[in-house]
C-alpha cells in the first residue's frame, strides 16, 4: 500500500488516582500486520486501545499515527482509522443499511456513494440479506460484523478490534476471523485485543502479553511458545508433587500445579526421557500435547487467562 501509515505507541501510561492501569506500553503496528494485546480481563487492553484513538488521555506518553499525534489530533487521525469498540453501539433507530449510510455521512460520504459503500460492505460481511432489518433483530455475531462493516466505511489504514468475538458462538467467531484475515490481506494494519488464546494464536503476527497494565513478554505466537515453554507439555494427575519437582529440577524444565493435577514441560532436547519417567509412576491421567499460549501465560504470570 503506497500511502501506508504506521502507528507507534510511545511509553503509554494511564493512572486513575493511585491505580496505574497501563504502565509504560510501547509498540508499533505496520500495514498488513496483526498485532495482538493478549491478557486477562483488567489487564489494561481496552484502556490502551482508548489511548490509540483518543478517548483515553494518557497520563504520560503519546501515539504517533502517520503525521498525527494523539492525544490532540484524534479527530484527524480517526479519519484513517476503523474502530470496533467492545460495547455494542449500533444505532437502534436505523435499519442495518441506514446504520452504514448514516454513519458514512460523518466521513463526508453521502448520497449514492454512501449507498454504494454500504452495499459493498454488507456483501463483504454477508449481511446483504438483512439490509432492511432492524438492529435489534440481528444475532450477536451479525451485530459484531455490522460494527466491523461500519468501521470500514472510510477504507481505514488501520483497524482496532477490541475483544471482537467475545460472546460469539464458534461459527460466528470463524466467520469474523475470515474477515480479519481478509483485511490483513488488503494491507490494513490491525490491532486486536483478546483474552482468547486460540484467537491470538491463529490471527496475530505478533503478540504483547499484558498483565496488570504491563507488557510481560512479546513476540510471535510460535516464538513465545517455543521460548517460554518449549514444544510439548504433559498434563498429569495422580503423581506426587515432589516427584515432578525433582524431575523438573533434574531436566531443567518447568512444572506447576494445574487444576487437580500438574503441568510439566517436556524438554525439547529429549522429551521421551521425562515422559517415560512420569509414565513409570502410573498416573491416573497422562496427556501429552503441544505447548500453547495458555501455558506461556501460566508460566509468566502464574494465572490462567479469563
Amino acid at each position, binding site marked *: 500500500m503506497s500511502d501506508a501509515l504506521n502507528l507507534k505507541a510511545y511509553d503509554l501510561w494511564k493512572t486513575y488516582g493511585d491505580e496505574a492501569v497501563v504502565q509504560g506500553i510501547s509498540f508499533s503496528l505496520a500495514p498488513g500486520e496483526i498485532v495482538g494485546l493478549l491478557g486477562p480481563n483488567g489487564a489494561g487492553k481496552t484502556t490502551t486501545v482508548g489511548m490509540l484513538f483518543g478517548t483515553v*488521555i494518557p497520563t504520560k506518553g503519546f501515539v504517533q499515527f502517520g503525521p498525527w499525534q494523539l492525544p490532540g489530533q484524534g*479527530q484527524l487521525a*480517526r479519519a484513517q482509522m476503523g474502530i470496533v469498540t467492545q*460495547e455494542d453501539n449500533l*444505532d*437502534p*433507530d436505523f435499519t442495518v443499511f*441506514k446504520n452504514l449510510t448514516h454513519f458514512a455521512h*460523518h466521513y463526508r460520504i453521502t448520497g449514492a456513494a454512501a449507498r454504494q459503500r454500504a452495499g459493498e460492505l454488507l456483501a463483504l460481511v454477508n449481511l446483504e440479506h438483512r439490509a432492511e432489518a432492524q438492529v435489534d433483530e440481528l444475532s450477536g455475531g451479525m451485530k459484531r460484523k455490522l460494527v466491523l462493516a461500519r*468501521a470500514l466505511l472510510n477504507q481505514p489504514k488501520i483497524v482496532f478490534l477490541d475483544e471482537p468475538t467475545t460472546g460469539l458462538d464458534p461459527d460466528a467467531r470463524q466467520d469474523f476471523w475470515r474477515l480479519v484475515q481478509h483485511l490483513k490481506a488488503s494491507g490494513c494494519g490491525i490491532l486486536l485485543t483478546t483474552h482468547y488464546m486460540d484467537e491470538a494464536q491463529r490471527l496475530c503476527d505478533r503478540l504483547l502479553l499484558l498483565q496488570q497494565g504491563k507488557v510481560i513478554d512479546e513476540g510471535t505466537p510460535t516464538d513465545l511458545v517455543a521460548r517460554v515453554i518449549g514444544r510439548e507439555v504433559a498434563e498429569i494427575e495422580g503423581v506426587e508433587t515432589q516427584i515432578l519437582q525433582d524431575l523438573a529440577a533434574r531436566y531443567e524444565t518447568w512444572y506447576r500445579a494445574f487444576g487437580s493435577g500438574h503441568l510439566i514441560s517436556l524438554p525439547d532436547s529429549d522429551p521421551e526421557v521425562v515422559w517415560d519417567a512420569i509414565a513409570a509412576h502410573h498416573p491416573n491421567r497422562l496427556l501429552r500435547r503441544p505447548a500453547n499460549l495458555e501455558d506461556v501465560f501460566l508460566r509468566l504470570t502464574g494465572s490462567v487467562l479469563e
Partner: protein
Amino acid sequence: MKLITATPWGVYSVWWRHFQVYRSTWLVNCLPPVSEPIVYLLAFGYGLSPLIGEVDYLGQMIPYARFLAPGMIAIGVLFQSFFEGAYSSFIRLNFQKTWQALLTAPLSYTDVFLGDWVWAATKGTIAGTITGLVAVLANLYDLSSLVLSLPLIVLGSLLFGAFGLLVAGAVNKVDQVNVPIFLVIIPMFTLCGTYFPRDTLPPLLAKFASLLPLASLVDLLRWPLGLPPWWPLLLLWLIGWMVVMARLAALRIYPRLFS
C-alpha cells in the same frame, strides 16, 4: 479538556443524524407541539377567558387569550428543548452509546456536543414556531410578530436545550431527570408569567420568578403587547444563562466520554 475543535460539517453531521431519526417518525414527533398548545389555548383561553376577561399587563388591559398565547409559545420552547436535551441526550449517552459511537468517527467532542445541543434547540424552535402558528390561526398573535420573534424562540431553545444537556450530564439514572423537572421546570412553567402576570404573586415570590430565565423569555415574546423599559437587560440575562448552562453542560458530559 480541549475545546474549539469543531468543524461545521461535524456539527451538521451529528445534527443530521438526529434529524434522520426525527424524520422517520415525524408524525408522532409533531403531535405534542401541535396538540399541546391547542389544548392549552382551548382549555385556558376559552375556559378562563369568560372568568378573567382581560388582564392588566404593563398598565394596559389585554384580552386574556392574547396575553396567554406568548406564554404558550415559551412553554413549547421550554418543554421540547429541555426534554430533548435531558432525556434523549441521556439515552444517547448512557443507553444507546450514540455519543461513544460518534467519537469513533472523525468527529470531535465539540462537534458531538454542539450537534446535540443544536438539535435540542431545533426541537424547541419547531415547537415554539408551531405553537406560534396555532396562535396566529386563532388570531392571538400576528404572523409578522411571530417572524420577528423567531430569534427569541431560537435563543430560548438554545438556553433550555443547554439546561437539558446539563441535566443529562449531571444525573446517573434516568429517573433522576425528574428532580430538576419538579424543582425547576414546573415552578418556571407555572410562575414565570405564562398563565398570569407575575405582579399578582406575593412580592418576594414575584421577584424570584422574575429571575428565572423563562420569565425573561415570556416577557420578551410579549413584545407586541409592550415591553418593560429594561428589556435589553432581559435579553442579556437570557444570553448569560445560555452561556453558563452550555459551558457547565460541556464540562459535565466530557468526563463521561473521556478519561
